């Protein structure tokens, strides 16, 4: 180790911020080099001198004032909603849901639901409107769960369930005209069942997604 290298490590050495190899090399060098030995003593002296700067604790008056101010603060802060973020998430969710329905139309999802239930011999007497409701719920639940996860992850832990609920409601409003248009050929009860399913699926999807994204999937700072 050269003198220059040894000297550049001295502060870190005193602060115990060197690796074991650096420590060993530095100590070996200092033992054999009078100049660096003196340097190290100088650094240590400055380091030790610093600690003699003692500062008395804060004024009692300041402390009382602070604790009184804290006493006056609300403990349960109102959850703050971020309308722009909720709107963007709702719009993204609506687009995702529309894309999904263009690949797999609602009637097709309804058919698949009916076949699946029949195959496993579940709820044989289920009316068609209930099946449309279940199929619709998937078009709300899945996109909003995905969008909620990402949004919750990005936004962090600020009232995620509240933010998720607002997003779910906004999504339901945004998607309604589209559903009414694509389902214009269907009987009204079926369209209503799809709409109700989408809306009711979106709420737990968004709320759960936001919450999970904010808490379980730690947000990047």
């Amino acid at each position, binding site marked *: 180790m050269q003198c220059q290298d040894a000297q550049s490590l001295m502060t870190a050495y005193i602060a115990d*911020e060197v690796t074991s190899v650096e420590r060993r090399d530095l100590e070996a060098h200092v033992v054999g080099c009078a100049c660096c030995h003196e340097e190290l003593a100088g650094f240590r002296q400055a380091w030790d001198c610093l600690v003699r700067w003692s500062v008395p604790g804060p004024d009692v008056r300041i402390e009382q004032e602070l604790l009184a101010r804290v*006493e006056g603060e609300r403990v349960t802060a109102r959850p703050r909603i971020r309308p722009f973020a909720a709107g963007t998430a709702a719009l993204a969710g609506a687009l995702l849901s529309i894309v999904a329905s263009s690949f797999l139309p609602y009637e097709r999802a309804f058919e698949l639901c009916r076949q699946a239930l029949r195959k496993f011999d579940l709820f044989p007497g289920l009316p068609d409107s209930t099946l449309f409701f279940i199929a619709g719920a998937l078009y709300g639940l899945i996109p909003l769960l995905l969008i909620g996860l990402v949004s919750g992850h990005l936004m962090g832990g600020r009232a995620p369930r509240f933010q998720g609920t607002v997003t779910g409601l906004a999504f339901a409003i945004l998607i309604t005209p589209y559903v009414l248009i694509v389902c214009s050929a269907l009987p009204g009860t079926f369209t209503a069942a799809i709409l109700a399913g989408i809306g009711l699926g979106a709420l737990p999807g968004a709320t759960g997604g936001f919450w999970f994204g904010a808490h379980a999937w730690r947000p990047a700072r």
Partner: protein
Amino acid sequence: MTGRARMSQPSDQELMLALKAGDRAAFEALYRRYRDRLHAFLVRYTGDPATAQDLFQETFLRVFRDRARYEPRAAFATWLFTIARNLSLDSLKKPAAKPVQSEAAIQVVPDPAPDALQGLERREADTALRRALTSLPEDDRAILLLSRFEGLRYSQIAEILGTSEGAVKVRAHRALQALRRVVKA
């Protein structure tokens, strides 16, 4: 304090989580734990006791108000000193409020029973050292104070300053080198 009593003390993280859940007593416990350290840091960092008192209040008030933002994976001390440093920088930036390095803060109080000459020399050396410390660039000063007095790791200091650990290492050395020159002189 017995070992058993110390073991039953809640950690900083536990207290912060309790505070997040609305427990005011947890705030007081954290306050008592960090009161003297934070106050001393601010006096040494700003070089002005009056400014330090204001910043001290503001920092703890910010801890209380921003409790929801605290992430338990971060050490509380790192978070606290980040807030303190940011508020200090804001206050130092305001030209009207720029604190003058107060002699009162720097001046060394005589020991109660000093060995006359040696005591005087040491007092002068300490005063010179403090003056040198308060005239360091702000970040260098913060690094040295956090490392020397708070015992924070370079990695934690890097997080507080928003810089790399390597940069902290270099600046810490530069800062101590400056002080060393004063001690040597």
